C-alpha cells in the first residue's frame, strides 16, 4: 500500500470531511560565481509530506520527513487534531470548499536538455567565461553570475480519489556587472527571471554576448545623468520591467485571500474588493490581463494546483474592467464562486498551500506596433528596461518603482542614458494611463521565482509577460 493510500484511509477512518497528502521531493542546484570565485556550489534535497485535514469548516496541517506507515498515520492524526482545534475558532459554520471532481493524471515540465544532467564543468565553464568577459572591462569592479536549477517531484492524493503525479522544474540565470567610479557605483543585470524549461534556454540566450552588453551598459549607467526634477512624463516599459509592475499592482491585488482579509496581519489587504467585480475601471480599454496556468514554460504551469484543481485560463481584467480573481477551493465559496481557479500552491512539502498569483500576463496590442514606432511616437518620456527598486502600499494602491536601465526620450528619439530614475503612481491611475501596447511579436515572459507571501513565509513562483507598453502622464523623477 502506498503512503498516499495509507494517509487517505487514515483520514477517512478518523472522520475527516476532506483530506489530502502531498509527498514532495525538491532538488535545488545553486551556483554563485562572484569575480571568478565560486561562492556557492550546492545541491539541496528536501523530501517529506504535508497532510491537510478539513474538519467542521477548519483546516489542520501537519508535516513530516519520516517515511514509514506509523509516522504517516501519526501525521494524519496530528493534522486531524489540529483541524478540530482550529474549528473551535471559526466564523459561523466555518470555511467550505468549492466542489471539485477527482482526477487521475500526471504532468511533466517539457524539457529537452535536463539541466540536472548537464555536467557541473559545463555550467561552471560558461559562468567563468561570462565573468571573465565582464571583468575584462576597466571599471567593472564586480561580476556576478547566479544560476539556480530547481525540480519538484510531487505525488498528490485526496479523499476525493484524486491521484496526481507531477514533476515541474525551472532554471534561472542572472548576470550582473557593477561599475565603480570615484563618485558612484551602478549595476546592470541580465534577468529574464526563471523559466520552466531546460538547459536549451541557456544555450539560446548567448550569455557571452549578453555579458558584453551588460558590462558596457553598467559603464554607461555609472556615468549617466539623473533627472533633476520630478514631472509628468510618458513612460515606455519593457517586458522585463512590466513583469514586476503587474506582479505588485495587479497580481497581488487580485489574490482572493488578500481580498478577503486573510493576509491582513502581514502581506496586507487589497483595494480590489468584490463589489468592484464587473464594473471597476482598473485600466484603459486596451488593458487585458489573463490568468493562465497552462502558459507554455510558465512557472505556475503544473497541470493541477495543490488543491487538485486543473489548470485554467481566464480573464482577470478584460477591456480594462476587473472581472475575476485568482482563487482556491477555500476562498472561492467565500464570495459565491462555484469553482476555484486553481491558484492554491505551497512551496515546500512542509508549507500549507495558500492562494497564489497564477501565471498572469498583459495581452499584447491588437494593432501592429513595434517598440521603435512607440518610441518615435513619444515626445517626452523615459524608456525603462529591467527591474529596480519597487515598493507598494499594503492595499496595493500607491507604488514607486525604479528600473535597471533608462533612456530619456526626446522628440521620438532615445536622447541620453539615465540612472536612478523613479516613478510614482497608483491604482487605478497607472493602468488607465496605458495608451499603447506593442503587438504579439514583442511579447516576452518574465518568471518570478521568489514571491514572498504567507506566514510562515513561502516563496511562490509564477510567470508574467507583456509587450512593451506606454503609460502617459506619470510622475517620473530621480533618487536623491
Amino acid at each position, binding site marked *: 500500500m502506498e503512503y498516499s493510500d495509507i494517509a487517505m484511509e487514515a483520514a477517512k477512518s478518523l472522520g475527516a470531511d476532506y483530506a489530502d497528502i502531498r509527498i514532495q521531493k525538491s532538488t535545488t542546484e545553486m551556483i554563485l560565481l562572484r569575480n571568478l570565485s*565560486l*561562492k*556557492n*556550489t550546492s*545541491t*539541496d*534535497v*528536501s*523530501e517529506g509530506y504535508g497532510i491537510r485535514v478539513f474538519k467542521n469548516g*477548519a*483546516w489542520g*496541517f*501537519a*508535516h*513530516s*520527513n519520516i517515511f514509514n506507515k506509523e509516522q504517516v498515520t501519526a*501525521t494524519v492524526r496530528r493534522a486531524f487534531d*489540529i483541524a478540530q*482545534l*482550529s474549528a*473551535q*475558532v*471559526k*466564523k459561523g459554520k*466555518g*470555511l467550505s470548499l468549492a466542489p471539485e471532481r477527482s482526477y487521475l493524471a500526471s504532468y511533466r515540465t517539457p524539457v529537452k536538455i535536463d539541466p540536472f544532467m548537464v*555536467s*557541473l*564543468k559545463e555550467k*561552471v565553464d560558461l559562468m567563468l567565461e561570462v565573468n571573465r568577459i565582464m571583468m575584462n572591462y576597466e571599471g567593472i*569592479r*564586480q561580476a556576478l553570475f547566479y544560476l539556480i536549477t530547481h525540480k519538484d517531484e510531487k505525488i498528490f492524493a485526496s479523499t476525493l480519489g484524486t491521484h496526481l503525479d507531477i514533476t515541474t522544474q525551472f532554471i534561472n540565470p542572472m548576470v550582473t556587472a*557593477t561599475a*565603480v567610479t570615484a563618485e558612484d*557605483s551602478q549595476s546592470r543585470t541580465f534577468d529574464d527571471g526563471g523559466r520552466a524549461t531546460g538547459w536549451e534556454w541557456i544555450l539560446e540566450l548567448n550569455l557571452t554576448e549578453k555579458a558584453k552588453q551588460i558590462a558596457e551598459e553598467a559603464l554607461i549607467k555609472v556615468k549617466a545623468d539623473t533627472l533633476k526634477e520630478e514631472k509628468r512624463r510618458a513612460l515606455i516599459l519593457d517586458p522585463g520591467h512590466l513583469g514586476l509592475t503587474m506582479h505588485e499592482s495587479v497580481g497581488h491585488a487580485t489574490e482572493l485571500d488578500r481580498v*478577503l*482579509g*486573510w493576509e*491582513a*496581519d502581514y502581506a*496586507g489587504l487589497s483595494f480590489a474588493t468584490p463589489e468592484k467585480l464587473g464594473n471597476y475601471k482598473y485600466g484603459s480599454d486596451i488593458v487585458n490581463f489573463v490568468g493562465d496556468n497552462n502558459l507554455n514554460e510558465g512557472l505556475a504551469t503544473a497541470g493541477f494546483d495543490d488543491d487538485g484543481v486543473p489548470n485554467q485560463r481566464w480573464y482577470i481584467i478584460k477591456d480594462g474592467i476587473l472581472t475575476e480573481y485568482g482563487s482556491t477551493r477555500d476562498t472561492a465559496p467565500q464570495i459565491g464562486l462555484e469553482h476555484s481557479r486553481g491558484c492554491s500552491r505551497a512551496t515546500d512539502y512542509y*508549507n*500549507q498551500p*495558500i492562494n497564489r498569483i497564477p501565471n498572469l500576463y498583459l495581452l499584447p496590442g491588437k494593432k501592429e506596433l513595434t517598440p521603435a514606432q512607440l518610441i518615435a511616437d513619444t515626445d517626452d518620456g523615459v524608456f525603462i528596461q529591467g527591474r529596480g*527598486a519597487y*515598493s*507598494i*502600499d*499594503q*492595499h496595493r494602491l*500607491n507604488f*514607486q518603482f525604479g528600473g535597471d536601465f533608462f533612456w530619456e526620450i526626446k522628440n521620438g528619439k532615445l536622447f541620453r542614458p539615465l540612472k*536612478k530614475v*523613479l516613478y*510614482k503612481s*497608483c491604482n487605478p491611475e497607472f493602468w488607465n494611463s496605458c495608451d499603447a501596447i506593442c503587438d504579439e511579436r514583442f511579447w516576452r515572459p518574465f518568471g518570478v521565482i521568489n514571491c514572498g507571501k504567507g*506566514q*510562515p513565509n513561502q516563496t511562490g513562483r509564477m510567470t508574467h509577460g507583456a509587450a512593451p507598453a506606454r503609460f502617459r502622464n506619470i510622475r517620473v523623477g530621480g*533618487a*536623491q
Partner: protein
Amino acid sequence: MKAQLEAIADFVKKHVKADDYTLRIQAWNSHETRFAQNAITQHIAGENINIDLEAAFGQKTGRSSVNQADENSLSEMIKRAEEMASVNEPDPEYVESASQQEIPKVQNASQSTLELKPEQMVELIKKSIANAEKQNAIVSGMTEKHYMEMLTTTKNGFNGYYDITNFGHSMTLKKDETETKVSYSSKDYGAFNLEQDIEKLNSQSAALHDLQPFQPCRIPLIIRPGALIEFYMYMLWMMNRRQTDEGLTPFTGQLGKKCMGEKFSMLSTLTMPDLVTEPFSNEAVVAKETYWVRNGVLENLPTPRYWAKLKNLEPSDPFNIYIPGENVSEEKMMQMVPEGLIVNRFWYIRPVDMKTGEVTGMTRDGVLYFKEGKVRHAVNNLRFNEIPADTTKRILALGVSELADSAVKLPTVLVDGFNFVDSTTF
C-alpha cells in the same frame, strides 16, 4: 535532540574523505496558527532537519544538503558534496574551515516556551478575537512557537551547539477604516502578557480617530520600535566590510569617521539577557561584543572570513542588534518640535540606490499628526525616500530601548525633517 545531531555529525565525520569540511545541522519543530477576520485560517505543525556539508579538496569546494538523517541519505549527501568539489574549479577565495574556538555560553531557550501547548495558543487567539468582537472590529494575526537547534563542526576542530526558542503573537486590528498592529516576538513565552498587548492595541486603535488627508513633506517624525527595526535593518544590510572596501556602499571611506549622528550607537551584545544571541554565525564566526556605530562613529563593519584573512582583520557578524536609548517619553518628544507625525510601522522598504544608501517605503498601521505637544488626529499613509544613515544625524531624542524582535532591541526615536514624498488614499 542534541544526541541525535551529534550522532549524525559522528557518522559524517567518520565517512567524509575531503581535505576539509564544514558540517552544519539545523533541526527545528514549529507550531504556527494564523488567524484572520476573527477565525483561524491556517494551522501548521511539524518537525524538520537540514544537514548541510561543505567539502573541499584543496581549493575546490562543493556543498550538499539533505533533510533525511538515515545513513543512506547521509552517504548520498557526502558523495554529492565530494563529487562536486572534486570536479569543480578551484576557488581563488577559498578559506579553510574554522578552527577550535571558545564559544560564549548563552541561554536562548526558555522552558515556558517549550512547555506551551497548542490548546493554550488557541486560547490566546480566542481572547484576541473576543477583544475585537467586543468593539465590533476584526483581528488577524499569528501565534507561533518554535524550537531550533544548531550544531556546527569542522575538520579543523570547530565544534559548536546552541538551541533557541521563540514565541510570537501578533494582532492587527481593523476597526472601520483604520488598522493597527501590536506584535510580540521573544524567546520567552513566560514574559508575554496578552492583556497588556491587547490594551496597547486598543489604545493605538482608539488614537486613530478623525482621519484627515495629509500632504507629503519633510516633517519631524516619531518612529516607534516596530517601524525603526525595518528601517535600520536595511542600513545594516549595506554595512558589509568587503563591499564597502570595494566602493559599493555608502560607507566607503567612512570607517573610523563620524558619519552618523552623535546620539546614535548600534552594537551586537552579549550583555542583554532578554536578547537572543547566536553564539556563532553560519561561517562559524564567534559572537563578540562589537560596536558597529558608537556615538556616530562607524567603528566596525561585519566582515566575512575570507575578507578578514585577506586584510588581516578579525571576522565579525551581527549576532543581534541593540540600539541604546535614552529615556525620553513620546509626550516629551511631541513637546520638542512644533508639529510632527508618529508612525507605528513601516512597510515594503526597498533600497533605491546602494551607493547612497537611499531606501523607499510606506507607513502602515496608523499614522498620527501632533501639534503643540498633543496628538490631533490620524492621517493617511505616506511614502518616504530616505537615507537611514543620514537620519541618524537628525535624531533629536530617543526613548527607552525595548525588544522589537527576539534578537533586536531599540528605542522609539524622534527624527527631524523626515522626507515624505507621496501619499496614498487610506
